């Protein structure tokens, strides 16, 4: 049963139909990241506004004239998804309070999502994220962690694990590959004392979706760090994304857990 518990197996068929990320996107064959993105947004549903960083998920879902998005979606740049989402959240907040929203939006509860890859989150967008968490916006930030800059060709990020060989941390005569330890953004986010932070993996889809929901329902900022296997960057066969994610969790090389108000809870 590949570690997939029975309950899990049969609950799959209870899933609602309806997708916010539709077929026709241009992710690689067998991409674990796009699966995570699809499942999270499926769970969050149509009343979601997503602000995306540049990266694989942006490129493969929004090349004019094709969009894979069935919800309102905004891409601005690589390093500012959290800030853009803060702005969107604040815009709605102000308009709602001031009674300036059109009638059909006035009472709609909307989930605001900022999302990016590990590069967009742990590196170039860390500050925008920290600012958004600190200010306390009511939003969910999702990091898809495939442990490198995949969109630009498998360069190292600070989320690349020690020893991994990437195009900018290649193994060579004088180097074993990545020379630094994986930055733990979830811990960093939790150090902001936000109400909710969690790690997850699409290999455990119901867990992932439940966490997405919890993140959305938490008032204030929530952070979701999703381990996303990337067959292109990791170079295994294209059918292994789920298996690899499951393995990472089961061997605790990527533990999944939740942190409420800074206090860690294992799952």
């Amino acid at each position, binding site marked *: 049963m590949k570690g997939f518990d029975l309950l899990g197996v049969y609950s799959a068929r209870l899933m609602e139909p309806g997708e916010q990320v539709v077929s026709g996107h*241009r*992710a*690689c*064959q067998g*991409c674990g990241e796009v699966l995570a993105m699809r499942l999270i947004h499926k769970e969050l549903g149509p009343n979601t506004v997503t602000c995306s960083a540049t990266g694989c998920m942006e*490129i*493969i879902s929004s*090349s004019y004239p094709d969009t894979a998005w069935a919800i309102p979606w905004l891409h601005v740049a690589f390093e500012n998804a959290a800030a853009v989402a803060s702005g969107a959240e604040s815009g709605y907040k102000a308009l709602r309070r001031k009674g300036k929203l059109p009638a059909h939006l006035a009472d709609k509860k909307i989930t605001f999502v900022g999302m990016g890859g590990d590069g967009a989150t742990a590196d170039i967008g860390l500050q925008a994220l920290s600012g958004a968490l600190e200010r306390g916006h009511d939003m969910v930030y999702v990091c898809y962690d495939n442990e490198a800059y995949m*969109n630009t060709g498998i360069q190292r990020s600070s989320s690349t694990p020690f020893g991994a060989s990437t195009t900018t941390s290649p193994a060579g005569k004088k180097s074993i590959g990545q020379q630094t330890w994986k930055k733990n953004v979830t811990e960093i986010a939790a150090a902001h004392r936000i109400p909710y932070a969690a790690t997850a993996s699409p290999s455990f889809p119901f867990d992932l979706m439940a966490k997405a929901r919890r993140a959305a329902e938490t008032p204030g900022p929530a952070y979701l760090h999703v381990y996303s296997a990337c*067959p*292109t960057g990791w170079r295994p066969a*294209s059918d292994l994304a789920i298996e690899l994610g499951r393995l990472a969790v089961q061997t605790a090389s990527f533990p999944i857990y939740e942190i409420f108000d800074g206090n860690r809870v294992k799952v």
Partner: protein
Amino acid sequence: MAGVEAENDLSREESRMIELRFHGRGGQGAVTSAEILATAAIDEGKFAQAFPSFGPERRGAPVIAFARIDESQIRDRTAIQQPDVVMVLDPTIMKIVKVTTGIKPTGMLVVNTSRGRAAIAELTGFTGKLATVDATAIAMAEIGRAITNMVLLGSLVKAAALVEAGTVEAIIDRRFGPMLGKRNIRAFRRAMEETDLG
């Protein structure tokens, strides 16, 4: 320089530039074959270029690559619109992409297929030179994976003699290292023998 007699009539007068387009799938090595071809030409003292289609195409998606070969300096960097040669690395591509778009009537189509010349002629409607090879079979046999790019280069060298086989083999050897190099060279050579020029 091109010491071997060309086996076809792609005219080789001084400064007649040859332009090639390669069709494959992301991850299949279309760019590499263009690159090796160009490098071989350069190693032989010619002028050459190779370049990918500059897009963020993902693994599995149809991709193209280009090459140009000339006796004098090449100054054109624009995409190739009217190739002399079109190389098809993956037989399934032809169902979804019109590989003959823009090809010169005097041009040549080099195709990986197990279905034979006639089927391809019919499928593509192309009336120019056609070279076919069951590259997938050769690759599976020699390399153990359906990586057909070196096989197709063998067919091309056989069909158009733009560069010498030895030059290509030297580059394959350099590039893939002893193990994989040897296998690819075997595949390349088999293609030179098994390619059907009609």
